[in-house]
């Protein structure tokens, strides 16, 4: 009887973690669609690293470890980092990749400095750096799931309200500007949504692996469709799949951390999609090539009708 109660308790924890991971997967999958289509896949990596000083400052100022406060600090720092990247690219000849690299690494370094300051004060209530780097999906509580649900829900609603505008921004920025859409406002709006998804995901998979949560579901979804709405729906589904799958695998095998397992699940979905997706997939392309070869042979082409270049 005692065993049974432990079992249901374990299942309950697992269920909470799985729901949290699923919610995160769907939000980051959907928003990642925009990032991948705008060729800003690595912005997520930069934002998640740039969030560290925000977390440290939020902790230094309030002394609290409440997730909502830390998430708020992370969001502000991530947002500032993105703004710096965008303005460096706009005002100088420095390219996007260099701007990302310098902001990502130096913000993180500054966060590390603040973190060592916190450690030195000997406060027992430290903001865990390991948690930030790798996430601790296993510690997701019911209240965290609620936070993820509410903030993710708000982000999704904003995304649907501005569906038309964001779609135009992604596919034809100059046209959007020419018919009078406020490009810079929309750009900042989209980036802010991305920041929300990222800081929510930090707790589960951590800064280092967050970029995969944005990129992988969207890249996988891209292989199956050419429609934005379908792609976003599929990306969200793949995100859920990776989140739940990773949680279950890591809980059934001993000493396998959840975050990396989720990432590997998402990568497996990408691998499968690239190989087997109809039309775009590699296997499909190979079959098409074989069929073309055969039909060329049937129509009498034996490969000799091209004049081969001769040495003379």
């Amino acid at each position, binding site marked *: 009887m005692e065993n049974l109660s432990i079992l249901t308790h374990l299942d309950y924890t697992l269920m909470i973690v799985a729901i949290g991971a699923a919610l995160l997967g769907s939000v980051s999958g959907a928003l990642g669609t925009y990032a991948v289509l705008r060729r800003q896949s690595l912005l997520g990596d930069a934002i998640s690293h740039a969030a560290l000083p925000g977390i440290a400052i939020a902790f230094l100022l309030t002394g609290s470890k409440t997730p909502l406060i830390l998430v708020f600090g992370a969001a502000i720092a991530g947002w500032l980092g993105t703004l710096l990247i965008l303005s460096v690219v706009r005002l100088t000849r*420095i390219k996007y990749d260099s701007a990302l690299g310098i902001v990502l690494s*130096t913000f993180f*370094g500054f966060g590390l*400095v603040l973190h060592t*300051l916190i450690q030195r004060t000997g406060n027992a209530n430290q903001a865990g750096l390991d948690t930030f780097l790798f996430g601790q999906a296993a510690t997701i509580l019911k209240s965290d799931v609620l936070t993820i649900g509410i903030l993710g829900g708000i982000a999704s609603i904003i995304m649907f309200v501005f569906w038309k505008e964001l779609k135009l921004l992604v596919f034809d920025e100059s046209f959007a500007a020419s018919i009078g859409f406020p490009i810079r406002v929309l750009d900042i709006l989209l980036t802010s949504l991305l920041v929300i998804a990222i800081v929510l995901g930090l707790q589960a998979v951590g800064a280092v692996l967050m970029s995969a949560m944005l990129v992988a579901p969207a*890249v996988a979804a891209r292989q199956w469709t050419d429609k934005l709405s379908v792609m976003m729906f599929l990306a969200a589904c793949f995100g859920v799949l990776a989140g739940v799958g990773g949680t279950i695998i890591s809980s059934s095998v001993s000493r396998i951390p959840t975050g990396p397992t989720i*990432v*590997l699940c998402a990568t497996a979905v990408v691998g499968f999609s690239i190989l087997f997706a109809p039309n775009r997939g590699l296997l499909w392309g190979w079959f098409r090539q074989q069929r073309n070869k055969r039909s060329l042979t049937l129509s009498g082409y034996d490969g000799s009708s091209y004049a081969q270049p001769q040495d003379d």
Partner: protein
Amino acid sequence: MIQDHLDIQLIAIVTAVACALPGVFLVLRRMTLMSDAISHAILPGIVLAFFFTESLSSPLLILAAAGTGVLTVVVVELLQRTKLVKEDAAIGLTFPALFSIGVILISRFAGNVHLDMDAVLLGELAYAPLNRLNIFGYDLGPVSLYVMGTILLLNLAFILLLYKELKLVTFDVSLAAALGFAPTLIHYGLMTLVSVTTVGAFDAVGSILVVALIAGPPTTAYLITNRLSLMLTLSAIIGGVNAVSGYWLAYLFDVSIAGAIATMTLLVFGLVFLVVPNRGLIAIARRRARQKWEFAQTMLVIHLFNHEGLPEAEAESALAHLHEHLSWDPTFTRQVVKYALNNRCVSEKETQLTLTESGRAVARQVLVQ
């Protein structure tokens, strides 16, 4: 104690310069984030090699990790070549997957090895002088100084020997290919070098801050100069300055040395971004302000020129009514007139404004007469 100060700063400078040199080519070739990818993706290589060698500074470990780095580059390029994944997404897919494998390996076999995750990711420069090279009982200095020194010499030799080739491949790949220089070979040579440098440096500064050393100084130097040779020199100097100032910042506040070096990298970049002539924020702001007045002055001069010598000239050039004709704000109009007077484009005669010879020349030039 003084010896430790010197040792750490020496290691920091050598590491920073060794990272900055190949970084220049990464920044110019828009491949900065490849260093981010490599520095994360070498983790499984480090872990696997560590299982065999049980030491973080063994040459075998550096080779294995560098191999993983090159493998990352190959995987990213293969993904791109399928045309199904863009470059940025290919990078964003590859390194988290490899890094995840590394993390899982560490936690699966954590009981058997003593590999400190923080040491790999964040490094600890302060401990670097403790591991010393002893030959026949003589203390020859810290091991990492020799490791990074060798890597620095390797980078220097590569860049000096293949300077012309690297320059051509960086600025015009097609021409390089047409002339028979092998761009792919040079590309992989550079990537191998970046991998080796990253592995060597992660011991000192960790895998995330390596990116600050590789991307920071070249990006800063890129704001200052147009010449490749000067950019290389400046990057090395800026890298050294960041390293030394970061070290003293860390000493002063008793914080992470690597973190402080990264912070100094950001500060130095910000400072240069602010004040550098022509491309800095201040220069941009001043140029925009000057252009605003220049434009207004040109408008004024053209207005006067159009009505010069005609019956309505007196009404059109009256100081009190000028703003009505140009539909400007009265205060703005006064400022523009003052600007034009200072530039001797116009002269004031009682209530009238008349063009000077140079003002007429300006108007003629703009109107192409």
